[in-house]
């Protein structure tokens, strides 16, 4: 399995594909050429594992000389738990580092701006959803080490996505 990147000249962003196949390694255990390719799958531009791999490359001081880099093993934990617990029917978030060494997930869902500030040390998420039109705000503290916290997150996002669909009947 490997990832390949190519530039999309329409969007200006790199795009990635997941390649599944058999790769020969050299005597130094480095990946060499493909023996065979079984599947080539385009990755969602918001693919969580891909983005967390990018964040793992940050170094301390990334934010104008300040800014703690997220710990790689903690990023691996959040990538794995996200993969297993986030509802695949929901919109993927944008993911950003925080100055404190955490990760913040964000969704823009019509009138709602949503953030999940993930404390990788405590394995806890601080969820806030703000309706920028009427000022309504919903906040939750979510334990992300267990299924219950992820279920509550999935349900909160599902409710906002349902509201979006109901508010846009003419687009259906």
């Amino acid at each position: 399995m490997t990832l390949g990147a190519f530039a999309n000249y329409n969007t200006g962003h790199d795009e990635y594909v997941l390649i599944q196949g058999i790769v020969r390694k050299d005597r130094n255990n480095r990946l060499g050429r493909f023996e065979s390719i079984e599947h080539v799958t385009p990755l969602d531009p918001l693919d969580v594992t891909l983005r967390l791999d990018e964040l793992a490359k940050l170094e301390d001081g990334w934010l104008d000389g300040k800014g703690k880099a997220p710990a790689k093993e903690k990023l691996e934990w959040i990538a794995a738990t996200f993969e297993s617990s986030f509802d695949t029917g929901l919109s993927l978030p944008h993911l950003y580092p925080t100055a404190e060494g955490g990760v913040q997930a964000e969704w823009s869902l019509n009138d709602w701006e949503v953030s999940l500030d993930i404390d990788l040390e405590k394995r806890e998420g601080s969820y806030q959803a703000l309706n920028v039109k009427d000022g309504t705000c919903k906040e939750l503290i979510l334990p992300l080490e267990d299924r219950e916290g992820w279920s509550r997150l999935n349900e909160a996002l599902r409710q906002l996505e349902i509201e979006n669909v109901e508010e846009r009947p003419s687009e259906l």
Partner: protein
Amino acid sequence: MNSETLLLRQVNPGFVQLGRPTSQAFRPTPKDECLLSVDDGSLIQPKASWERFTREPDRHSAGVMAVTFAECSGQELPVNEDRVPFPEHCSIDFNGLSESSIRKKAKALARHAVERDWLYRESQ
């Protein structure tokens, strides 16, 4: 400065994914003492603002976005025309607000900035 004056904000490359900035770019970090640095857009152009910022050591910016004075007022955020350390410098003042309130106001500012789109990008 008037209500439509653009307040220029540098956005760190780590705070951008696929062209979308995080709302964190519009709230002070712990190092900022609740003051969010911006440049007075009536006195400096976005490109010149970016160039000056990135000339400093350890300073990185993916580009420049902006909110207006009126949009800050709409969030009950004072804008201090402090003019320090250079004449165009101003600060959006988040002092006295709870963490929750800071996050809400940053989301609202970010939405305004995104609707306005980038005023300058590093690759331009």
